């Protein structure tokens, strides 16, 4: 390769259109032929733009006009904002168009996500508590995830933690799927799944010696019951096209 390039560079040196200084420099350390380098440079820029565009677009929200007054009813109770696709919202056209352009490339290379670690703010954890019952209604399995006693090593625990956390992004539908999975796994006839939020304590509360896992810190957000034979209707069509939960 190096030999091949040297001969080509000799050619470039004799080319009067090429500034002398530049080609003498390129021969000092850079081996590939300029055309080749231009082409690769172009690909590099495209690739890095794609890498940049995915998190950029995912971190960008439409904006309301400055000074926009949110609607309220006669009692001053806030009404829902206009839908996200209404013209009131200012759309971030540049990142949207760019990510749309690079979409398939981003998907193919597993780059279509953001990098929002513990952002915008570190939040409490989601937990899934479950009970599985046999046909007589007796409990045949119970547990929760994540659970340090149950899931080891740490990465395996963490996978369960993420499973619970991403419930928040996917909604109750995922809870129903967990219920069904647990039923099948334990051979039960019905199951009950609780989606629990474990809230965080402030520094003052910890100084006042409230334990981080105090009973009061757990809030049940939803409870899902499943019985064998029922069919779920995943309302997939309503979900956004982009991969959700990208912020984890």
């Amino acid at each position, binding site marked *: 390769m190096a030999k091949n390039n040297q001969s080509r560079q000799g050619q470039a040196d004799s080319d009067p259109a090429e*500034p002398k200084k530049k080609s003498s420099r390129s021969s000092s*350390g*850079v*081996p*590939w032929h300029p055309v080749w*380098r231009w082409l*690769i440079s172009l690909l*590099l820029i495209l690739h*890095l733009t794609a890498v940049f565009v995915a*998190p*950029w677009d995912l*971190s960008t929200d439409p904006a309301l006009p400055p000074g926009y007054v949110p609607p309220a009813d006669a009692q001053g109770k806030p009404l829902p904002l206009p839908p996200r696709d209404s013209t009131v919202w200012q759309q971030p056209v540049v990142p949207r168009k760019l990510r749309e352009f690079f979409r*398939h490339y981003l*998907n*193919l*290379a*597993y780059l279509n*996500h*953001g*990098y*929002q*670690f*513990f*952002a*915008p*703010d*570190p*939040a*409490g*954890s989601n937990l899934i508590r479950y009970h599985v019952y046999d046909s007589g209604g007796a409990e045949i399995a119970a547990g929760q995830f*994540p659970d340090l006693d149950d899931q080891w090593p*740490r*990465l395996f625990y963490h*996978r369960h933690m993420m*499973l619970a956390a*991403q419930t928040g*992004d*996917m909604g109750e*539908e*995922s809870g129903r*799927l*967990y219920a069904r*999975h647990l039923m*099948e*796994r334990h051979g039960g006839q019905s199951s009950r799944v609780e989606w629990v939020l*474990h809230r*965080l*304590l*402030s*520094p003052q509360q*910890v100084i006042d010696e409230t334990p*981080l*896992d105090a009973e009061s810190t757990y809030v049940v957000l939803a409870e899902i019951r499943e019985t064998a034979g029922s069919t779920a209707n*995943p309302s*997939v069509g309503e*979900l*956004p096209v*982009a*991969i959700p939960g990208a912020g*984890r």
Partner: protein
Amino acid sequence: MKRIVADIRSYLAEAWQAWNLFWFSPTDPATLCFLRVLAGAMLFYTHLVWSLDLQAFIGQKGWLPVDFIRGIQGHQWSVWSIFFYIEEPWQLWCVHIFSVLVFLFLMLGLFSRTSAIFGFLLAVSYAHRVSPGAYFGLDKINCMFALYLMLGPCGARYSLDRIWRLRRGDTSPVAPSTSANLAIRLIQLHLCIIYLFSGLAKLLGENWQAGSAVWWAVANYEYQSLSATWLASWPVLVGLATHITVFWELFYCCLVWNRHLRPIVLWIAVVVHLGIAMFMGMITFGLAMLFANLSFLQPATVRRWVDPLADRIALKLTG
């Protein structure tokens, strides 16, 4: 006027020259090879752990059936995974065992380039199967490594391939490689983009702004591995840790390129990621991020620290 044109010409020539030196200078592949060992080990371990409940996480049914995940992903053709098409458990296990072996080979440097290519295809297959569901930052970093390891001679050093060549009597020195440089540069820049958007996202969090975010992170019982709730009495310490994290993430992409600031930037990375590993139990993710930071080590530095160990192992294997 003539002078301005000449100025612009010489600026463009210099910029093109700098661009070429940045991307196309051949470099000793030591850094890339060292990253192959580390990232290969992480990929190996990550996928080994799936074995503990393969059906439930990766199988056709499990916690979140493939149909459901594909629906959430919008049934795009470009979101691909071999696991979307595997029905039978025995097939699943075959692919899984093959994958774990590929990652083991990648770590050891056996058929390195081939292993790297298969490694990338398989890593993305697993990641797409669990996004969303059970994925997190680790999968993003793993796939990033797998992507760029394909590009360079990642088995040129610290590999069974190399020992194999030595045993066959091929003692030619490892040649500097432009593609190794390309791969390293891409890892470096990709890491810069990761930190940039990680920092930008934090700026929008009011607790990151106010300096209390680190508290809410260590107060998370589920993440906690070593309790740091004594920080409750040290708000200034919490504030400093929070602000330094945000500024460091935001400006990593610039500061790491300065010769004088690079050591500081990288040492902050060590403290931050080991802190996350120790206190918040994210050992794998913390290490993966640290590995990515190692891409900024000079090949000479890598060789100074890794060569003695590698030579001892090679000597044992070659007898």
